[in-house]
């Protein structure tokens, strides 16, 4: 699992770590039981403070997304599909918010926005998926 932290981004580093790990869990790149890279390795590879990584890991643990086993490491928790689905919805919602803010600044009307949305949705040809519980 490869984390790419941008220290020159205004987004705080611990938030980048949390987002990227949650994204990996939501897409299935990280499966329940998978071992996360150690705090030391993440810190060294990305040239960030170990405390920052430790803090992100402990936040994720508190949220139940990962489980820490003393002396062994951190592992992805047994996230039921409902939790993954909720995380995924939250992430997509925040992306939508950014796009909607842009659309507002570009002075699109609500019907126009809905038009664009349906147009793109039709274009993409998403495979059929059962909606999660």
């Amino acid at each position: 699992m490869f984390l790419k932290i941008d220290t020159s981004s205004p987004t705080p580093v611990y938030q980048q770590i949390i987002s990227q790990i949650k994204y990996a869990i939501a897409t299935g790149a990280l499966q329940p039981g998978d071992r996360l890279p150690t705090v030391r390795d993440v810190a060294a590879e990305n040239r960030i403070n170990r405390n920052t990584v430790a803090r992100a890991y402990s936040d994720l643990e508190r949220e139940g997304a990962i489980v820490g086993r003393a002396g062994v490491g951190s592992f992805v928790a047994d996230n039921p599909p409902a939790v993954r689905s909720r995380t995924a919805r939250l992430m997509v919602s925040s992306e939508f918010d950014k796009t909607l803010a842009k659309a507002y600044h570009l002075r699109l009307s609500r019907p126009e926005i809905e038009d664009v949305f349906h147009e793109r949705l039709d274009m993409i040809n998403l495979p059929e998926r059962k909606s999660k519980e």
Partner: protein
Amino acid sequence: MDDGIVVETKNLGRRFGRHYAVHDLTWQVRRGAIYGLLGLNGAGKTTTFRLLMGLLRPTNGEARMLGLDPQRQGVELKRRVGYVGESPCFYEWMTVYELFAFVAHYRKENWDAAFAKSLAERFALEGSKKLSTLSKGMRAKVSLCIAIAFRPELLILDEPTGGLDPVARREFFEGVLAEYQTPDRTILISSHLINEVSGIVDQIGILHEGNLLMDCSTEEFLSKVKVMRLRFAGDPPPHFTAEGILRYRVDGREGRAVTLNYCEGETENKIKSAGAESVEVMDLNLEDAFVEFISERKSP
């Protein structure tokens, strides 16, 4: 000495002729921090570090490193503090391993020869090469090896990556983080390359013309320094003032302003009460925040 304070200065000052390179510095660094002393070239960072290491005598005030007086307990200080400066001075005729052996002699108690060797291997340094044949990047890595091979409690890095190429700079910091940093050790680093250290430092101090203008956590600094876009009902006014707002200027159809004391909600309210219709707050990275902060202090 366990109040957790690893570096401490009281009214520390150093004058050269009539010019104060460091002026009345009262300052503390706590154990476990990775503290970044930031500032422009000539701000007084290197002078401060030389005072801390006992390489310069203060004009006034005092400093304590691990409770030790750099002026009177310099020998013990150098045994317990690792130091990497910008241009390492070696005996050029020595090989890497000869230098290790030389340094080990002065650090008898804590020098770990096996660790030093593994560090050299990590950095791909050939032990039998003469120091005079090494590139700048390799010399910096040699400096780092001898600074951390005796596992000091405190590591001072004074512009350690000056003149290094991007790969060497990354390898340097990867080495520090992978091989040295633990919760009970403290790192004090000075740099004018802000974004390079922005991921690493959790505490920052901003030195400007010999004065410490800011001393807080990185997070707190970034929460307070913001750039804002202001929109008005009509065209943005040529001048605009509100409490805490600095350097307002017109930018197309918007106003742009800076605040060094952002308080969520309160700042926006003050701006709106002063006549703006809407406020968009922009987060800054450490380098941009530093530039905004220091621009306020620089003489026009």
